[in-house]
């Protein structure tokens, strides 16, 4: 379940975060205001945010499903009460906090020297070419950092699931949200098997280390550092 979640959440939040950051990076008035607004969910308590989305995504009468019915979807999903839809619901909830990653991307974007774009314009590059050949390579260290963080965060999700399931005895509907940390908590603190839980923690560490190692390997191939560039 945790792996599935990481596979869903990492690319989703990565692309969304980058898209939002690109929007915010436009040199137009009022951008600081938008940036402030979009970052708001990232400072809020995870528990409070989860409670709010539990209400909004309520299957019977939640505001989201009201909207879906209004646009003609007769039987909108039951979200957090449905084995299949629980994870997409979680994804929608984390999209709400996309501003957190976007701010880091924004900092990366603003560090790209403008003369690169100017030179490309003179050479006749269009916006797509500029994005592909300047923005992406120059942003790759930031991308790498964000991917690493998203993977680690994905491994460690706990609070939201705990709230959604109303305690660690179940992991969402039919254990469809039984994430690693929740299982660890259940074993260690509800069933009193501290040794077992510690073993789980070590396995998690090894998984984390392997993932970080893989990302680092990936980094060597794809991440471009300006200081390494041939003069």
């Amino acid at each position, binding site marked *: 379940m945790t792996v599935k979640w990481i596979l869903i959440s990492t690319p989703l939040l990565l692309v969304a975060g980058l898209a939002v950051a690109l929007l915010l990076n436009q040199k137009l008035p009022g951008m600081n205001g938008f940036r402030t*607004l979009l970052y708001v969910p990232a400072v809020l308590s995870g528990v409070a945010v989860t409670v709010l989305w539990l209400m909004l995504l309520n299957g019977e009468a939640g505001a989201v499903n*009201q909207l879906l019915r209004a646009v003609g979807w007769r039987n909108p999903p039951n979200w957090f009460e449905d084995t299949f839809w629980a994870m997409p619901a979680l994804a929608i909830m984390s999209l*709400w906090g996309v501003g957190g990653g976007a701010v880091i991307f924004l900092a990366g974007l603003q560090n790209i020297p403008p003369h690169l774009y100017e030179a490309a314009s003179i050479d006749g590059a269009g916006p797509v070419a500029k994005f592909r050949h300047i923005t992406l390579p120059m942003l790759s260290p930031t991308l790498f950092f964000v991917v690493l963080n998203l993977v680690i965060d994905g491994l460690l999700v706990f609070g939201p699931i705990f709230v959604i399931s109303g305690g660690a005895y179940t992991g969402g509907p039919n254990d469809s949200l039984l994430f690693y940390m929740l299982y660890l908590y259940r074993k260690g603190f509800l069933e009193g098997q501290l040794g077992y839980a510690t073993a789980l923690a070590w396995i998690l560490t090894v998984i984390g280390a392997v993932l970080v190692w893989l990302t680092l390997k990936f980094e060597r191939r794809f991440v471009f550092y300006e200081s390494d560039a041939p003069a």
Partner: protein
Amino acid sequence: MSVAQPLERSALSDTRRRRRLPPGRVAHAALVYSLLGLLGLFILLPVGWMLTAALKPDTAPVFTYPPEWFPTRYWNWDTFVRVLTDPDDPYLRYSLNTAFLVLVNVTGAVISNSLIAYAFARLRFRGRNVLFGVLLATMLLPGPVLLIPQFLVFFHLGWFDTYLPLTVPAFLGNAFFIFLLRQYMRTIPRELDEAARIDGASHWAVYRHIILPLCAPALTVVAVFTFLGVWNDFFGPLLYLNDPESYTVAVALATKVSRIGTQWNTLMAANLIAIVPPLLVYFAAQKRLIGGIASVGIRG
């Protein structure tokens, strides 16, 4: 690495704004604004819905068709008063508990991390670099591995169900904050402390009267991060607190939501109580905070 860099760019956009925009730019701007407007709605509507629900009286349905995104009909502020003072589930109490934890943690974090960072930035002693390396290595050790040993240590110290496990660690430093502060202190010219040393100032005086005041921006970042971290922390209080009297807002909220028969309007009011303090702090410290996050991001 300075902490509040990105804001200087607004000066740049000011000069561009005065130039008349060609039609292509106008269409582009319209597109950007409408997309951002939609995103803004996506962020704002849930919060508005929450306020609307909290302001409804017990009798009014929370789930209406069509959904009410902003409060128009009901303004029952007394829901908040009830949630704060309800003898069975007093959020005023929880807020004060959390505020107490926040206060102690922020104090501890500012004092301990700045002292340790001062030592790493300014003192020369044998093994300093090794120690700093060890410190940074602790950042790599994942939290879950520490969780159970830490729990057992605190348990055997007899600290279970007290605030000690949630406050004492703040006074022992945090690798990330030490790193942040050390980097910041290294940007302060050494000539300043050397001048003070010649005038007879002790290390303590240099720290207190030169370094600390100049570190104010970085210390703000430490304080705000600590505030947000402690106020929003769920796992720590969940693990160590047993007595409902000592609950923090986050734990109380999680308990409230799983209780059968919870009134939606009071739940949403409690939710808002959990959300407002971080919001206020965020808006007050917004510029420095985002700058701080950005500089942290670049570090990777």
